């Protein structure tokens, strides 16, 4: 057998099955969104055209092809071109800001030759390549060097994507970095210390919005001082950390006033999802929760969801596809989806554990982080645990870029696990 294809015999079957199951589930849900709904007296035509499903079917087939191609190419080649890919992704992110298609109050799409791509999705893979290569470099590097390297890599994509504006996706780059840094050997304590300015931001924001007061934040700063003193850090490090916390705490209120009104509204409606807010952003969360909750244990039956069928559920074939599954397949369906994702992530971490090549291990951790963050955040939004931030559910939500990128991610993991013994 051609050694190129021999690799297919060694792919991780559980991960492959999890991938296949999720893609099929996603296609079924997107198809359901295009089917007319039988209401009490008349058939309600779906507002999602059938072409959306056929398009998604094509993307799934292309995604499969991309995944297989990704498996076939030995991943060490990706290491070679990691920084090139990263640089290319930055170019695309700049391009989208300049000539991107305007939609929904932002520029997030690049169109050429009739195809639309989301550079921010491609940037996720490129970023994982680059960070994996950085962290897999000489292991003598100190944790602080790794962290500053990661920050350096992060700053470009985060800033550019946030300018589209796409707040949710820009956070993905930060979320991908933390587990990769941890796996590369950065201690949890350092990560927590570095994350403390973010905690500071969260504390000042919520206390201002909810209590209209700053004393909780002041209390947080005092507690932090105590912790730093007790942990016996060098005085310079302590000063820098304290300074960062205080600076962020002061900056957040200033940044808040400069946010887009729709961004403010989304964040606020998360904090106060009252009935009066239903027609606004709270509406999406409300309808999504009603869809999932009313699905019950066994669901309303495939194609039978009224929230979906009567178009109460917004973005039902894209960001809220999970709610359609919740409504039509019930708890059984959503637990199955969660289990498949967990399986995929667990197999990715296994690949990271067994891979003898650091770059491969880092790639696998990056993929695991990608799926973990996207899935947890997307589902947390559909059940109302997080504010709405336009983040697709990988492999399931309608969308070409997301499908290709997430299939490629799966391909990377299969690649790494199949070539675990390569050094």
């Amino acid at each position, binding site marked *: 057998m051609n050694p190129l294809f021999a690799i297919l015999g060694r792919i991780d079957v559980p991960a492959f099955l999890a991938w296949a199951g999720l893609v099929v589930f996603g296609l079924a849900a997107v198809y359901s969104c295009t089917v007319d709904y039988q*209401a009490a007296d008349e058939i309600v035509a779906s507002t999602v055209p059938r072409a959306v499903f056929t398009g998604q079917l094509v993307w799934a087939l292309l995604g499969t092809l991309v995944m297989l191609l990704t498996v076939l190419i030995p991943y060490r080649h990706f290491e070679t071109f990691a920084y090139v890919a990263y640089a290319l992704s930055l170019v695309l992110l700049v391009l989208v800001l300049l000539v991107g298609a305007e939609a929904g109050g932002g520029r997030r799409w690049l169109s050429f030759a009739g195809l639309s791509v989301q550079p921010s999705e491609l940037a996720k893979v490129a970023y994982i390549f680059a960070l994996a290569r950085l962290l897999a470099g000489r292991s003598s590097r100190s944790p602080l060097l790794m962290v500053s390297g990661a920050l350096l890599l992060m700053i470009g994509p985060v800033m550019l994507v946030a300018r589209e504006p796409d707040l949710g996706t820009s956070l993905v780059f930060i979320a991908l970095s933390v587990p990769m840094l941890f796996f*590369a050997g950065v201690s949890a304590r350092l990560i927590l210390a570095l994350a403390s300015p973010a905690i500071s931001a969260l504390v000042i924001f919520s206390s201002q919005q909810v209590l209209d007061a700053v004393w909780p934040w002041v209390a947080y700063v005092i507690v932090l001082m105590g912790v730093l003193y007790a942990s016996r850090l060098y005085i310079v490090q302590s000063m820098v950390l304290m300074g960062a916390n205080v600076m962020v705490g002061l900056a957040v209120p200033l940044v808040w006033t400069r946010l887009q009104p729709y961004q403010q509204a989304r964040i606020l409606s998360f904090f106060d999802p009252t009935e009066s807010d239903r027609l606004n952003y709270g509406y999406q969360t409300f309808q999504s929760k009603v869809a999932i*909750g009313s699905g019950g244990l066994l669901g309303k039956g495939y194609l039978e969801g009224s929230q979906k069928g009567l178009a109460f559920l917004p973005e039902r074939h894209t960001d809220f596809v999970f709610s359609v599954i919740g409504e039509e397949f019930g708890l059984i369906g959503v637990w199955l989806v969660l289990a498949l994702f967990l399986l995929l992530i667990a197999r990715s971490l296994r690949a990271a554990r067994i891979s003898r090549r650091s770059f491969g291990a880092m790639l696998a951790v990056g993929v695991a982080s990608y799926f973990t963050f996207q899935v947890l955040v997307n589902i947390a939004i559909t059940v109302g645990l997080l504010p709405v931030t336009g983040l697709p559910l990988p492999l399931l939500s309608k969308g070409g870029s997301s499908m290709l990128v997430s299939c490629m991610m799966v391909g990377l993991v299969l690649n790494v696990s199949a070539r675990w013994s390569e050094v």
Partner: protein
Amino acid sequence: MDEHARAWRARVLLLVVALGFFTLATKLFSMQVLAHAEYARMARENRQFVRRVLAPRGVISDRAGLNLAHNVYLARVTYPRSFAVQGDSTLDRLIELLDLDEASVLKRIDRAPPGDRVTIVRRATPQQVAVVEEHRVQLPNVQLIVQPRRHYRYGSLAAHLMGYVGEVRPEETGSGQADYLPGDLIGRSGVEAWAEGLLRGEPGREVIEVNAAGHVVGSISEGGEPALPGAEVFLTLHAGLQQTLERLLDGKVGSGVCVEVGTGDILAAASSPTFDPNEFTAGISQVRLDELRSDRRKPEFNRAMRGTYPPGSPFKLMTAAAALDAGHVRPETRFEPCRGGYMYGDRYFRCWELAGHGSLDLMGAIVQSCDVYFYQLISLLTVDELAAAARRFGLGAATGLPALRDHAGLVPTSAWYDERFGRGGWTSGVKLNLAIGQGELLVTPLQMARAFAALGGDGLLDRPHLVLAHTRSLGVHEERSVLRSTQPVCQPRTRQILQRALRLVVAHEEGTGGLARVAGVAVAGKTGTAENPFGEDHAWFVAYAPAEAPQVAVAVIVENSGHGGSIAAPLVGEFLEAYFSLSGSDTASGARR
């Protein structure tokens, strides 16, 4: 990094991931299993609404079941005001589909009354309704609003009695026993208002399903309740007779009433001029309303029941009855002959016949309507004795007619004069005017018809009726119960004398009512020329027929027209001819349900 540390870190990461997934799995369990019922209810309420179903308003028919007022359903095509601008694609599509003239649609949008929806087509044809329904997907936000409208099939026929409906006013909604909502129709006058409780029915409920855009996608049988249609109300009116009476009065100002002897059924009651209630239900323009309301002849005024007039000579029957009952006179009694007038104290009272009637007995005085005879007769009676007799004939008090408020008129007593002019501020001279039905006396045509029905019949007053029956539940419920006075209007002997006199008024060659004769039917009646201090005399004729066994009594008054004998009597004659020409089975009585 060594193998061991790597495995440990992978396990820590997996633990964190698993924790996150576990949190979501728990949250999903609590939503889909523990709180499922609550979310299921919210999903239902999301798409199901309870809509009120209006009950069709009951129809109004005449006594033979001929439908006079019914409902027509009009469909309006509406569009949200904010979208209704030139160049809107949906509006363009609508104009194209319904083949409308764009310029006139835009003009209509410009001039539309305020509100959140603009009516694009006011009265959509069935074809237009079908087109809109068929292309609903292409016409988002276009809404068909179907509204019932009351339609009076014969226009102004019996308009004063039927009344009309209007939209309920904001202050009338919510309160009271019935749950009215803005836009509901409510009876504004006439039988429509009186029988509101019967005609309205009870609104039902319908559970409808809507999609996210608010479009109705069906109704669900569960939880609904059908509307209880309003009852059909049968009037005592006979549409044919009503039409005849209205035609006879057409172009005149006046009114006429025909009541059935023995039951009090009002077979016809006309008031002229009249109006078309359809103008009100179609949404009358302010210009037209001003025109109607400023008409000095008051077309909306129901003269038959609320118009008060001096009774004139027909009242002489009441004067005569009072004197006969008291035993002061007999049919042959004569006073000083009539020489065209009568000196009472220092005032001269004229007879309408300036040449004088010469010497007459009571019968002759009634037949020729001699005023001087009654000037002398009244000296035998007090004001209060006359008033009591008049009241026995049902004058000076409302008739008790259900459905419409009728006017009580006025029968003055000495107490009334005392109050009006002060004790001693008036003289017994007022009696002379009262004796011939003038002075302060005021009666309605309905009162006069009823009084003559009693006089011609068995002497008992009937309570008049306008509503014969209704179909509240299964079958027909007799609404009217014949209610008769316990006291006769006069003594039987008196009645016989007066009946003879009334027959002679029409039949005798010297009688004043000769023009009311009907071939083959003996008509009895009394003319009247009521002096009107504000203008020309009012012409009265009050009659019953057939004289020997009366079926109907009729009172007609034509305002400012002259002599009763020449103006009113022929109208009554023509009306009675129409009544008796109805074939046996179709006579008013025979057609009673």
